[in-house]
């Protein structure tokens, strides 16, 4: 069954591509076939979608998602996580490797890739582990994962730092053979033993073991120099401190091939939130200070930080309904990421919608090397390009309710808070995965 016969031709009427003047976008056969004047007549065999007042963006691409399957299906599954991604406006996610078993073989990454493909909510691109079992000793079968059906290009031990400098060097060198990238979770392990939150004024008062900024910055500094030395590509996951921004800025000025991401929560939340010992706000790297928040916003606005990635980290309620030290690190983010970026960067006048498309779609797709080929992501909204489109109502405001989100977990840090913007519709290669803000369940077996 081909999608030409199963998907209607959609006409997104009055949509504003990247916030520009409204047009009608026509999606047919999986691609953008036509751009018409706004509110042109619609043919009988076309399905009109009223996009008046809505901004059209290329489908969002997350470089950092924890789908938890295989292993922790009680927190999230590939189906529930990718459905949440679609609701959040995403058309592709990179599934992190810290599952059980770890995604360190071709078998595991192909399984994740296939389940994602069959679910059909977004394209699932598995991230391969750098080291066997994330243990930091021996290189995983990186080549086999790259050559598998999943075509892995991003490798990461995320959750753990590739601490051993020689292992990091070898990984950076090895991925050059297929234009891969090593995505580093920058955390010096000895400086962060037992760490619970950002080390500073708040941790001193709360008596929680500190996670100092230097533990992140020292690894980033080492890694950019390693990447320069071996001429490879480094990606820095969830950068969180002002010092890290400075190091990335320096490295880019030096011509080092490094990219960096910031999470939505590090763009808006600070360590002051730990004062009530609510483990919802326990995350790794930890929430930092207001000065760090300002620095990462500045870094994102000036291009030092390339992308926003969610680090969507679902956890079961029992892993969060406990004392701080016993709780798991992490918070969900797929369904709030775009709103947080709008609030912190667009509504504040620091970025345009075109910039949003860059940091949440084009750049992450480019880093993951999924911006070409039959399932290309992060492409411009132009005729002939894949019809991966998200429609956003920037004027909407909504109160986040963790219990009603599409993700299987409830650990959103924004529960009860009002955020701007609402994803109205998401299209994956011309097929609606979300309409009127709700996920569109598909007929089994239909793939785009």
């Amino acid at each position, binding site marked *: 069954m081909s999608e030409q016969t199963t998907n209607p031709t959609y006409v997104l009427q009055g949509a504003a591509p990247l916030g520009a003047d409204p047009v009608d976008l026509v999606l047919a056969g999986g691609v953008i076939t036509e751009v018409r004047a706004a509110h042109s007549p619609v043919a009988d065999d076309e399905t009109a979608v009223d996009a008046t007042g809505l901004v059209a963006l290329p489908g969002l691409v997350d470089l950092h998602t924890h789908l938890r399957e295989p292993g922790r299906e009680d927190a999230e599954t590939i189906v529930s996580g990718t459905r949440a991604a679609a609701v959040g406006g995403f058309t592709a996610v990179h599934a992190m490797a810290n599952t059980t078993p770890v995604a360190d073989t071709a078998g595991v990454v192909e399984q994740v890739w296939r389940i994602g493909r069959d679910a059909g909510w977004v394209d699932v691109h598995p991230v391969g582990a750098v080291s066997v079992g994330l243990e930091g000793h021996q290189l995983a079968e990186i080549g086999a994962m790259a050559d598998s059906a999943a075509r892995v290009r991003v490798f990461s031990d995320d959750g753990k730092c590739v601490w051993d400098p020689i292992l990091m060097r070898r990984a950076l060198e090895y991925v050059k053979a297929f234009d891969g990238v090593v995505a580093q979770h920058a955390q010096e392990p000895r400086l962060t033993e037992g760490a619970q939150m950002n080390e500073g004024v708040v941790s001193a008062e709360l008596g929680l073991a500190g996670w100092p900024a230097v533990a992140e910055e020292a690894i980033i500094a080492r890694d950019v120099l390693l990447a320069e030395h071996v001429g490879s590509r480094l990606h820095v996951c969830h950068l969180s401190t002002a010092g890290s921004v400075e190091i990335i800025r320096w490295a880019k000025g030096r011509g080092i091939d490094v990219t960096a991401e910031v999470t939505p929560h590090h763009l808006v939340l600070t360590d002051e939130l730990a004062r009530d010992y609510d483990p919802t706000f326990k995350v790794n790297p930890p929430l930092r200070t207001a000065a760090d928040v300002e620095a990462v916003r500045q870094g994102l606005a000036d291009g030092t930080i390339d992308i926003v990635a969610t680090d969507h980290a679902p956890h079961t309620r029992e892993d969060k309904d*406990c004392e701080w030290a016993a709780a798991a690190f992490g918070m969900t983010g797929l369904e709030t990421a775009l709103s947080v970026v709008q609030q912190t960067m667009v509504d504040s006048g620091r970025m345009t919608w075109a910039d949003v498309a860059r940091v949440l779609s084009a750049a992450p797709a480019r880093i993951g090397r999924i911006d070409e080929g039959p399932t290309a992501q992060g492409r411009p909204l132009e005729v002939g390009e894949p019809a991966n489109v998200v429609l956003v109502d920037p004027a909407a405001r909504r109160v986040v309710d963790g219990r009603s989100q599409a993700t299987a977990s409830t650990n959103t840090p924004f529960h009860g808070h009002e955020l701007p913007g609402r994803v109205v519709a998401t299209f994956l290669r011309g097929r609606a995965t979300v309409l009127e803000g709700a996920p569109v369940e598909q007929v089994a077996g239909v793939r785009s």
Partner: protein
Amino acid sequence: MKHLLSTADLARADAIRILDTAAQMAATQSREIKKLPTLRGRTVVNLFFEDSTRTRISFETAAKRLSADVINFSAKGSSVSKGESLKDTALTLQAMGADAVVIRHQASGAPHTLAHAGWVEAAVVNAGDGMHQHPTQALLDAFTMRRHLVGRGAAGASIVGDPTGQDLAGLRIAVVGDVLHSRVARSNVHLLHTLGAQVTLVAPPTLVPVGVETWPCDVSYHLDEVLAETAPDAVMMLRVQRERMSGSGAGGGAFFPNPLEYTRNYGLDGRRLALLPDHTIVMHPGPMNRGLEISAEAADSPRAVIVEQVANGVAVRMAVLYLLLAGDASKERAGLE
């Protein structure tokens, strides 16, 4: 006051009320019959996730002297060691009708979570949580200081006058040792500041937390200087945990080179004792490492009020339980006013 979780949120008036009530409680403890009927029929649970025989016995004694029923719930030998969550333990205590839960936990913030997660209706008393707070220790320390140092005549007589209603204004207190890991230090800094005392923390730089600059106190790395220059009215020595000397891993994480060097620079010995003004008292929350942070000469000197701190602990904990569970209404029944 519904709970006692931290001295940071304790108002001056509340702190003085606790100290004054403790003084009344202490007075009853010199009677032949020490037991008061105040909390008859009320249930106090000592929920201890961390070993602390001293603190548990102190709370148990305090509750029993007020005629409360006391249940000791230790993490060891209970379902907690089999992996029961704090939440389920709390729900169990709630179902059993606990009126107050005295909790000691290795995780900072666990008492806060217990008090605010909606699991129990009982009053929660923090009996020490991780590196965070140990409010009744600070209160008994303040109580001891007030008895010895407030209302003291110009001649320096030991106990003069009735300090009831008074704070600790103008007193200079040195707190010496492992500040980084110490809930006692954190609790004292806030309480003593609230009561008007000037606190100087003294520790090697490795045992001072990053972020200490916002605390309402001074910080010094030099004990001899502090003793000579501030002439403290009280010197409080903190316990140094043995594991701080080795650190984790291969020893690079140790906080100081060895015990001898620590004692040389930060131990209270006979020489340093001689530097102190005559009226200065020596305190220690216990248990002491004799020969490490405090020498036998200092610990056993007439200035040392360490044993009295223990006795005052019972009175202060009686006061806290009384104020949380009985409040003003039953003061008459208690025969306290």
